[in-house]
């Protein structure tokens, strides 16, 4: 059986922007958040009016604003080395203090992409064996932040499930994920196990089941 035969067809679920907007809806006012690369970087634009989300960047920025209109300050970048601005009330700290804040649980939510999430909430998002290994702050973020929300496509480019019984990619952390937002569904982690709480518009519970190898329970609203 080839991959083409074994994988169900692609569904038109949430776009990347819609995933980001779905995540943004769940962020309470006043929350402090770290954003990984990819879909998470689309979250700030989707924050509803009147909600303040305080953004942290692991290179020592607390209170990150949007990209500058002009070239910006060369001494002011985010963790992806891109120019940024600061909001009023921002503070700069050194890298040890930045990670003291991260590891010490002083952020509320970290939102990041993933290669795989397992049914026991393990996360793999830093390394594809054979490629170039680099880890950055991912392992600190998932070890320290109380809420670890994954934003990703439900299946990979070949249509293979990314929410799996056990991660085959090297782990970033064990049992660290607390929510998963994909184009097809939203999962919460409760008592260390996945619970499907929402199907995206255009996706049914059966669609999700067919594209997920992890065991999970359902409590659809």
């Amino acid at each position, binding site marked *: 059986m080839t991959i083409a035969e074994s994988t169900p067809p692609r569904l038109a679920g949430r776009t990347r922007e819609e995933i980001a907007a779905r995540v943004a809806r769940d962020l309470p*006012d*006043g929350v*402090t958040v770290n954003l990984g690369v990819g879909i998470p970087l689309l979250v700030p634009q989707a924050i509803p009016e*009147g909600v*303040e989300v*305080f953004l*942290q960047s692991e290179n020592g920025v*607390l*209170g990150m604003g949007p990209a500058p209109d002009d070239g910006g300050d060369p001494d002011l970048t985010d963790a992806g080395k891109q120019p940024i601005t*600061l909001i*009023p*009330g*921002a*503070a*700069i*700290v050194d890298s040890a203090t930045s*990670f*003291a*804040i*991260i*590891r*010490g*649980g*002083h*952020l509320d939510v970290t939102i990041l992409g993933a290669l795989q999430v397992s049914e026991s909430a393990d996360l793999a998002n830093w390394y594809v064996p054979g490629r170039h290994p680099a880890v950055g702050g991912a392992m600190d973020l998932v*070890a*320290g932040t109380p809420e670890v929300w994954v934003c990703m496509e439900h299946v990979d480019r070949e249509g293979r499930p990314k929410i799996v019984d056990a991660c085959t990619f090297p782990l970033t952390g064990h049992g660290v994920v607390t929510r998963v937002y994909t184009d097809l569904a939203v999962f919460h982690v409760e008592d260390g196990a996945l619970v499907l709480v929402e199907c995206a518009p255009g996706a049914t519970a059966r669609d999700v089941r067919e594209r997920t190898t992890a065991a999970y329970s359902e409590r659809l609203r």
Partner: protein
Amino acid sequence: MIDKYREDLAQALDIVWSGATIAIGGFGSSGRPDALLNALSDLDKRDLHLYVNNVGHDFTGVGRLVVEGRVRRVTASFPILQEFYRMYFDGRVELELIPQGTLAERMRAGGAGIPAFFTPSGAGTMLSDGSFPLAYDEGEAARHVPRKESRDFDGRPHVLEHGIRADFSLVKAQKGDRKGNLRFHRSARNFNPLAAMCGRTSFAEIEQLVDVDALDPDDIHVPGVLIDHVAMTAAPVPAAVQEGVS
């Protein structure tokens, strides 16, 4: 909207429960959060475990909590107050005595997600070998500070010390804003940033409330993410007035 400023200090602080562990900034009376400490007394909080460098000469702040019998244990490097020692030898308060640098590093570590670290300070002394009396009973040492795990690094003995994660922290700053960003003046900084780091809920009393964009981001000593509640420092109250008619 993040606004951590509290008009009513007592109301904000009333979430502290009796029995709580509390990390406190200050070195002697320098940078000591007396408004917060006095409010704990006024709110009748009891059975507290304080992490604080000194129990000072006077009966304000930490000293007042102690002499009013509200403190179960003090983890400190340099208590001074005679009355504190009398209560310690009488078995009415426990003393976990640790080196000053160990106290500062334990506060920072606990707030930084570091559960334990090795330090040479105190290795091979009665502060690490299990012989220091934690509590007295009828004039005799009844319980001791537990022996600390020891390990050699580079041929020198070190002891394992544990990060302090307190239920609450109380700090005092010179300036603060509504996002909780703080600045200290001169050596009044001391333990305050460390106390701010290690409390699950942290209170800051400030001398001056400034606009949210008044502090340069490069000049902030404690970022607001570490602070939950900001209130004004009370005007100093002379001891005579406290004990007198009012």
